[in-house]
């Protein structure tokens, strides 16, 4: 039958294209410890859910003998599928085909699936594994990158965008991931940089390996460009699925409310925090004592660790946490921690995720390096992000909330909806020692025993101001609560805020201190 013959021919054609760059190139990919693009897509998506498009797309480049070359799928796979049963758009660059280089057909495939994800309001996952621009296509490949960046920006804040770096991602190509919401990297596999080691060596004489310049660890620990670090691709894919579990599908939806369990009683909120405000504890344990199943999914775990950000569920609804972390730099705010938390707050705000802020900080990090690195303008990002956010905002002051840090950490004054404080909270312009030394400078200097006088004045100050009641008397905090009430109180606050509707002054957009 004629139809059968055509089906057979189709199957033959498809089989050829599905081989990507061919057996040899695939072997090379595997030898580098990498999965193939197709295997990656299949590993992320629910079994049997992948539908591929543009399989037969071919480039139309003519120069440099390109007209004699066939590049299967033009080096990228695009399609739709489901993750945890919910629809998603995905593309994966195929390094086995011309090094995953980006030409105009390749870029058109990517922008096609990007347009779908924005139009259909579903998240986009982009797997980057590419040698960069396809030089033979010249300015066409530059145009391709530009079209992608533009769409990343257009979709920003509308649908969640996830970038996965599973190979090289260099030069201009890095800016697509940088424009997306979450970047996943894998140890020894991911490499991201603007100019590579060779250029750096010839131009500047500095020798550095790709790994040390832009490996997974560098971007998770030093630059903050990446959000999730994994030891293997499979671990990375699990992290992606976990993240998607917490996210709403677009800015017009709320997160999926799923039935979940109570926190694990082994995280006892009354036991975690030492009474002495100078003693450390891991604030993540406090979060675990609050969230469903004690399941806290931390974002940017390895960078700017003096602040902790991440997602959890509260009675099934996703909430975002922003918490000072006393075990690192006493939980101070600085350039990096302001950057990190401000961006997270804006993500939560864009995607209708209530923000819970746990406060325990002595203030800002002092130092010439901080001042010269622009802690003023970076710190301002945090104030901006909190002030601008219109999702339900709940603050719990656990212990210290001094000075500018108190204001910045979602205080009443930045329009927190609910501010609670534990009896151990100290809301003051600065710590007792510093304050007493300034206020009672004369008394201390004039005393027979200045040190004894100083200690006495510090105690007096502590007694009077190192508590939540001064702020409570002014209505800056709504209630003083017992630690064990915290989950219940936050949950109630989120529940009663569920119809929150406030309007901001009409504007094209604000001008955050980027």
């Amino acid at each position: 039958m004629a139809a059968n013959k055509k089906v057979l021919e189709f199957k033959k054609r498809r089989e050829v294209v599905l081989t990507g760059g061919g057996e040899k190139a695939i072997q090379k990919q595997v030898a580098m410890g990498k999965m193939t693009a197709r295997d990656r897509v299949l590993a992320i998506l629910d079994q049997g859910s992948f539908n591929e498009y543009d399989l037969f797309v071919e480039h139309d480049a003519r120069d440099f003998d390109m007209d004699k070359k066939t590049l299967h799928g033009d080096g990228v796979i695009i399609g739709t599928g489901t993750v945890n049963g919910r629809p998603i758009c995905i593309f994966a660059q195929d390094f086995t085909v011309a090094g995953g280089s980006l030409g105009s057909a390749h870029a058109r495939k990517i922008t096609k699936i990007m347009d779908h994800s924005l139009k259909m309001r579903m998240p986009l996952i982009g797997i980057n594994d590419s040698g960069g621009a396809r030089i033979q296509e010249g300015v066409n490949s530059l145009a391709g990158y530009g079209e992608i960046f533009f769409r990343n920006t257009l979709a920003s804040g509308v649908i969640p965008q996830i970038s996965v770096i599973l190979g090289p991602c260099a030069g201009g190509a890095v800016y697509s991931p940088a424009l997306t919401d979450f970047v996943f990297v894998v140890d020894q596999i991911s490499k991201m940089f603007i100019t590579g080691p060779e250029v750096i060596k010839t131009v500047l004489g500095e020798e550095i390996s790709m790994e040390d310049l832009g490996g997974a660890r560098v971007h998770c620990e030093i630059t903050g460009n990446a959000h999730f670090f994994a030891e293997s691709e499979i671990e990375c894919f699990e992290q992606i699925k976990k993240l998607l579990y917490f996210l709403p599908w677009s800015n017009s939806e709320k997160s999926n409310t799923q039935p979940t369990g109570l926190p694990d009683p082994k995280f006892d909120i009354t036991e975690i925090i030492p009474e002495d405000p100078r003693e450390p504890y891991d604030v993540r344990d406090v979060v675990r004592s609050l969230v469903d199943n004690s399941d806290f999914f931390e974002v940017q775990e390895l960078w700017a660790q003096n602040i902790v950000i991440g997602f959890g569920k509260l009675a099934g609804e996703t909430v975002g946490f922003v918490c000072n972390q006393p075990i690192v730099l006493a939980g101070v705010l600085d350039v990096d921690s302001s950057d990190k938390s401000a961006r997270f707050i804006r993500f939560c705000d864009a995607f209708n995720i209530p923000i819970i802020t746990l406060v325990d900080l002595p203030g800002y990090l002092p130092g010439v390096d901080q001042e010269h690195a622009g802690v003023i303008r970076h710190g301002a990002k945090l104030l901006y992000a909190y002030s601008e956010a219109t999702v339900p905002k709940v603050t719990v002051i656990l212990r210290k909330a001094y000075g500018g840090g108190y204001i910045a950490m979602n205080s009443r004054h930045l329009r927190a909806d609910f501010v609670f404080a534990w009896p151990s909270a100290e809301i003051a312009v600065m710590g007792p020692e510093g304050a007493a030394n300034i206020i009672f400078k004369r008394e201390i200097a004039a005393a027979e025993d200045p040190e004894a006088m100083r200690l006495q004045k510090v105690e007096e100050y502590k007694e009077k101001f190192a508590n939540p009641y001064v702020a409570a008397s002014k209505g800056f905090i709504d209630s003083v609560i017992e630690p064990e009430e915290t989950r219940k109180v936050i949950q109630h606050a989120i529940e009663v805020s569920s119809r929150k509707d406030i309007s901001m002054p009409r504007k094209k957009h604000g001008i955050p201190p980027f």
Partner: protein
Amino acid sequence: MTIDKYTDFFIEETSYRTTLNEKFKNRKNWKKIDPKIIHSVIPGTIVDIFVNNGQLLKSGDPILILEAMKMRNVVCMPMDGTLKSVQVEKGQVIPKGFVLADIE
């Protein structure tokens, strides 16, 4: 006995027990720049030297050429004075912030 993993960290005269991150540990102490020491502002190669130690020079007199990123940068005297010493040689590849010369 367990070793205390926390260190004392001072903020506004109060000591907190905490850990320090790598960035904080690796921060460089700020030093006032001595105008009498000439540093390289970019890494590169010394391709020419025009002056000798002990020479009396005027502000703006060329001292040497530092080639970096295919650009020949003329490094000049920032003030009138006697050149104490040139601390690099012709052909030497130097990093950023390297001492090129000092003035008496």
